[in-house]
């Protein structure tokens, strides 16, 4: 009797353990089988076009609009898209890494340019032969060795945001940003503004992304205005063949920075700048210029009234007037969508491609990008008017092909590491030579 009980107990314990073990393996197996079953059901249903695909969204602010879009798309085509966004605070890179580690990657992944560069060769579908590639896709999308791997979801540009209304009010003259083509011209205008009673016409962010990824990166991008040129230059920094302090572009850009610093509204304590306050300064006319990009409209629009005219102009420098840096804007495809080729079935891949085409060529799709999400589209054929004034500025430069190519080759910690160096420079903790040597040291560390 006693023995029987014991055996029963052992069996019970064994079953538990087995169940626990099976729990794990089952989960894996069942997800496998559900994968395969769903894909097989998709194969059968593909003819009736009811494929379902997933999309990772890394622009959290447009998540509601994208969910709405998915509904519309389902009605129109029968293909269902499940849109989910990156977890709060997690970068797209982390999210996509987790998704691939879990074996459940999204069919369409909206990522930053650098992420595409790291993973595309292994995981992304070749999109070179898509129709939209020739309508702007290949210009603003990301190619590696001549193969296009991503769809540019929107264009974002950066430069000096200006408040036209307040400038005209204070100077009493019409303000034409195209007439400001050198640092001296900008300085003259700022002096006029100061004379007219505006104490600090400039706003500089303290955020490391703004200083590191946007201001400092201009130095690479404006070496010759192409991504290839930027790549060559950073290669030179890595190898130690480029000397930053002797670099002409670095010096003109930092000259402008020094000048802007003098007029900075946060000059007394530049590291205490507050992003929302910065937006209110320029929106309400307490200040006239802000170094930032068109995404800042989200914050500006909370403070601005409808009669205020605003726009973005290039970060001007004391070079010649026809220098491209004084005429063209740093604008590039900022969110890139790639299609997974590891787990997605051919049907899903096709559905994802169709969806991208829908965004570019279908009126409803165009309207999602431009009207619902207020983005600046990267495609020539989209003629819808961009809604916000900063976006309109960008669109003007994009349409005139007056953009400076974005550079995605910075390592992932570039913005925070060198952002900190730029912060030190902004706060007067290091001088230009010190900044140059920190930047050079950072790149030298990247040598493999």
């Amino acid at each position, binding site marked *: 009797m006693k023995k029987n009980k*014991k055996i029963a*107990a*052992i069996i019970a*314990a*064994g079953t*538990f*353990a087995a169940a*626990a*073990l099976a729990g*794990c393996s089952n989960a894996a197996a069942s997800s496998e089988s559900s994968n395969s079953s769903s894909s097989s059901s998709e194969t059968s249903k593909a003819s009736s076009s009811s494929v379902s695909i997933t999309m990772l969204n890394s622009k959290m602010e447009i998540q509601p609009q994208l969910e709405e879009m998915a509904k519309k798309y389902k009605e129109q085509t029968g293909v269902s898209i499940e849109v989910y966004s990156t977890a709060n605070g997690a*970068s797209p*890179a*982390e999210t*996509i*890494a987790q998704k*691939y*580690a879990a074996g459940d990657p999204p069919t369409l992944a909206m990522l930053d340019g650098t992420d595409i560069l*790291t*993973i595309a060769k*292994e995981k992304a579908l070749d999109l070179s032969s898509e129709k939209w590639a020739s309508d702007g896709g290949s210009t603003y999308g990301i190619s590696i060795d001549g193969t296009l791997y991503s769809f540019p979801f929107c264009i974002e540009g950066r430069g000096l945001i200006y408040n036209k209304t307040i400038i005209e009010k204070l100077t009493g003259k019409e303000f034409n940003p195209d007439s400001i083509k050198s640092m001296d011209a900008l300085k003259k205008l700022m002096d006029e503004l100061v004379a007219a009673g505006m104490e600090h016409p400039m706003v500089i962010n*303290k955020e*490391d992304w703004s200083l590191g990824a946007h201001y400092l990166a201009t130095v690479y991008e404006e070496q010759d205005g192409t991504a290839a040129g930027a790549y060559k230059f950073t290669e030179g920094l890595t190898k130690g063949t480029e000397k930053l302090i002797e670099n002409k572009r670095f010096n003109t850009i930092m000259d402008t920075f020094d000048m802007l610093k003098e007029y900075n509204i946060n000059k*007394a*304590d*530049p*590291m*205490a700048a*507050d992003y929302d306050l910065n937006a209110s300064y320029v929106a309400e006319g307490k200040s006239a210029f802000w170094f930032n990009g068109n995404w800042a409209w989200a914050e500006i629009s909370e403070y601005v009234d409808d009669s205020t005219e605003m726009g973005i102009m290039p970060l001007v420098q004391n070079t010649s007037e026809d220098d491209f840096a004084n005429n063209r804007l740093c604008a590039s495809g900022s969110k890139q969508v790639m299609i997974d080729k590891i787990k997605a079935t051919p049907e899903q891949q096709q559905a994802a491609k169709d969806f991208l085409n829908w965004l570019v060529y279908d009126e409803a799709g165009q309207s999602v990008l431009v009207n619902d999400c207020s983005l600046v589209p990267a495609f020539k054929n989209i003629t819808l008017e961009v809604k916000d004034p900063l976006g309109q500025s960008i669109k003007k430069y994009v349409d005139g092909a007056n953009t400076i190519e974005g550079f995605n080759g910075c*390592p*992932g*910690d570039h913005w*925070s*590491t060198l952002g*900190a*160096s730029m*912060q*030190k420079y902004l*706060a007067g*903790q290091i001088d230009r030579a010190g900044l140059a040597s920190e930047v050079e040291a950072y790149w030298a560390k990247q040598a493999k």
Partner: protein
Amino acid sequence: MNEKTLAAKTKTFLMFAGPAVFVFIAVLIVPLVYGVYLTFTSWDGISNNKPFVGLNNYIEVFKDKEFWNSLVLTLKYVAVSVVFINLIAFILAFLVTSGIKGQNFLRAGFFTPNLIGGVVLGFIWRFVFARALVSFGTAFDIDIFSTSWLSDPQKAFWAMIIVTTWQYSGYMMLIYIAGLMGVPKDLTEAASIDGATGFQATRHVVLPMMVPSFVICLFLSITRCFMVYDLNLSLTEGGPFAATRMVAMHVYKKAFEAKQYGTGQAEALILFIIVAIIGITQIYLGKRKEVEA
């Protein structure tokens, strides 16, 4: 019967400890071993290949000056905040067990900061340091508050310590209260009959009896302060100019931003070993001081 044979022993063991051992292995040992394995690769966190690089990552760690700087900074931060947390917690516990009016209300009040999560707490205090105190300082012309504490490396470090102390001292206070209440009344009475003053009774009777509380509180505050990340992120973001970047934040940035997963993992392992050594030493030394009533 056969109850002494190895097979029988194994059966009994599996019956009682099997499930727990299995779970322990699955959620602790396997990830740990895998983590250690990753320190020998140059994985970027997403690629399919995990190239084996031997001890390269550990050499990288020793060359990573920022890691050691942030570790030293963290050591300073831990040392200062552990002293403040425990000092204030003990004083508070002493006050709210001395029979002052409204002590239950005060206990709840002091404990409340601990109920607010680190991230929210960081944002609240960021507002206090960057805006509220600055307005106050400029309005009344008080020099030390007229610029944001968070824009100065030294002051930002102290801001971290103030908030940490504020967050944890209420929690440690609870443990000290339990310790104080646990000192048998007959001992303190005997001491006062023997003519000990209040201070002497506290110093020679109450404190020795409370050593277990100190050991626990020190252990908790040391480990928590070492691993601080949420507060660091939401209060200072490691700034200004990365001057308050604690070691956990550095490891995170190494692994996920610089995409040097192997090096980050190696740094995390080294951090783990350091914290384990300090924690165990502290408990070992503390336990030796424990006395029986």
